[in-house]
């Protein structure tokens, strides 16, 4: 199946029952596929009047208890940013898919890019927690979108699912796991009486994530994008503002282990390691195999979680490898994170490509040969 279809199918398997979207290349097939399959499982699909309306409807639907998702590409992702911040501060689980295309602005709508990596982390204003996942294949799209929902529900945060045009549009074989074998996580519900419910009291949960009631079930609570206290009502009291922002931010540190997905290929004895993500990691894998064939001890660090950045993996590699090569379809974005996490212990080499074509294995191989 196609990557975008795998995204749609995986989301439904994860329990997603509400999708709101707006047509945009190269993500449109996700909406088209969901328009057909969601009503078959009793779910609802709506094409909204614009990108902002789509993410807004998704947040509204999630507040009723429905796992909800929207999908877009660069220009639409920019438009959705304000509401992504709302989901972060109001702690409303939702998944936002961005099938990356060349930007800025309209750019090249039909061609791949990886230039939204920083925007995915920092696109909305203010300090806020998000997790960003990035699949490298169609099969991985299916399984990883399930994780996106699990993380979003578990931690009550928006999860950004960063695909690229190649992964979105290519067709590959996918073995659909039996539905019983998929690990599905649902949000924690309050176990108190409605009159005792404090909707933003994390101490009623695990100290970080408050249990979440659905709208329409008698809990009668308030949700706002203003800073709020544990009752959910607005506050500007400095200690309460501080506590809220710090608690929201702490979700990422607490979740780090659980949400970090990294694959290592031949890194044990590697002299040079390729750090890559998305479709570029596929080129990286081929380059590493070819390098090994020509006697270079190369390895691959494939990041499926981009944020939180997998610092510990990079630092460990940096301690033993001579160099880390970072190929990206942008002007060099995550390479700065690789440099930061390597703490000067190894040489970090950036390989960039911004001509609307994916990076080829031979390009990476030639860098591996030069190091």
């Amino acid at each position, binding site marked *: 199946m196609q990557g975008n279809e795998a995204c749609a199918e995986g989301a439904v398997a994860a329990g997603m029952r509400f999708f709101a979207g707006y047509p945009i290349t190269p993500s449109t097939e996700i909406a088209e596929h969901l328009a057909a399959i969601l009503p078959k499982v009793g779910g609802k699909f709506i094409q909204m009047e614009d990108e902002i309306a789509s993410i*807004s409807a998704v947040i509204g639907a999630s*507040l009723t208890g429905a796992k909800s998702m929207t999908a877009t590409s660069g220009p639409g992702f920019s438009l959705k940013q304000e509401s992504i911040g709302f989901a972060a501060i109001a702690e409303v689980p939702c998944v936002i898919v961005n099938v990356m295309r060349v930007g800025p602005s309209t750019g090249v709508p039909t061609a791949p890019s990886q230039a939204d990596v920083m925007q995915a982390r920092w696109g909305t204003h203010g300090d806020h927690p998000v997790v960003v996942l990035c699949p490298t294949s169609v099969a991985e799209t299916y399984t990883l979108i399930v994780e996106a929902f699990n993380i979003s529900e578990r931690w009550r945060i928006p999860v950004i699912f960063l695909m690229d045009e190649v992964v979105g549009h290519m067709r590959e074989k996918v073995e659909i796991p039996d539905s019983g074998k998929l690990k599905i996580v649902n949000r924690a519900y309050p176990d108190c009486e409605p009159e005792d419910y404090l909707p933003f009291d994390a101490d009623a949960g695990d100290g970080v994530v408050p249990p979440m009631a659905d709208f329409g079930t008698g809990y009668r609570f308030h949700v*706002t*994008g203003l800073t709020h206290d544990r009752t959910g009502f607005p506050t500007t009291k400095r200690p309460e503002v501080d506590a809220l922002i710090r608690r929201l931010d702490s979700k990422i540190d607490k979740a780090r282990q659980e949400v970090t997905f990294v694959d290592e290929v031949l890194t044990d004895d590697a002299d040079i390691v390729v750090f890559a993500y998305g479709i570029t990691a596929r080129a990286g894998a081929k380059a590493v195999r070819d390098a090994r064939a020509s006697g270079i001890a190369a390895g691959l660090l494939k990041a499926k979680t981009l944020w939180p950045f997998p610092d510990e993996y990079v630092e460990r590699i940096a301690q033993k490898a001579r160099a880390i090569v970072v190929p990206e379809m942008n002007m060099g974005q995550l390479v700065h994170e690789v440099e930061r996490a390597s703490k000067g212990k190894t040489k970090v080499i950036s390989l960039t490509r911004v001509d609307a074509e994916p990076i080829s294995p031979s390009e990476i191989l030639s860098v591996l040969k030069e190091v």
Partner: protein
Amino acid sequence: MAKPITYYLRTDKMPHIWCEGCGHGIVLGAVLRAIDSLDLDKDNVCVVSGIGCASRAPGYLDFDTLHTTHGRALAFATGIKMMKPGLDVIVLAGDGDLAAIGGNHLIHAARRNINITTICFNNSIYGMTSGQYSPMTPTGKIATTAPYGHIEEPFDLCELVFAAGASLVGRGAAYHSGPLSRLIAKAIATDGFAFVEAVSQCPTYFGRRNKMKNALAMLDWQKEHAVTKKAASRLSPEELADKFVIGELGTRTRPEYTKRYESIIAAAAKETDENV
């Protein structure tokens, strides 16, 4: 009222943030009396707002309440209504929120005819940010961003929303709070998109700059300039020029959106059955 108004209020969240003389409390009272007259279950009402003075209203109401981003209340409400069509979903919004930044959502919610009741608290100004002109500021009036007098024409929101496809539109005023409340009750009871423009007063940021020194003067203005549909039919266009028409201004019967969506689910189920 069958129940005291405090039954519907989160009185522990008072005092409210509205200025002395603000009309929004009167409009909110009309909304609550309408809810009371329909005997709606508090657990089954969801009130959604955007940003602005009017949008702070839900915080004082004892329902499930959602205070969203600027202009987007109807889009959030659409997600809620789709996934829980049984809820009574009410959007409370100011004129800037609804007619400027949220204008696109307003016409599309009306076009879909989704069963959401929208009340526009129209005070003709951006109050929260201290008095900039809105799409509802009358021509010639003074605002902080129109120091020489406003040169744009306001919308007729009721005409706009009815043309877009709403099932019911109407207008009321804070001064005429009884008829306003009855109009809102009819809007809530309508099975489709229903829109009520409630003319409200902002003495602080509109009145003082426009020769209406206090709330009383502004309520007097409402009293003198509101005409019923029937009275309006007897007036010439010149006589109507500085008046506003109150009452139920348009109704039609159209299929409601979430009910229509059930036909999609039925069609999809049929296709699944045929393939099995």
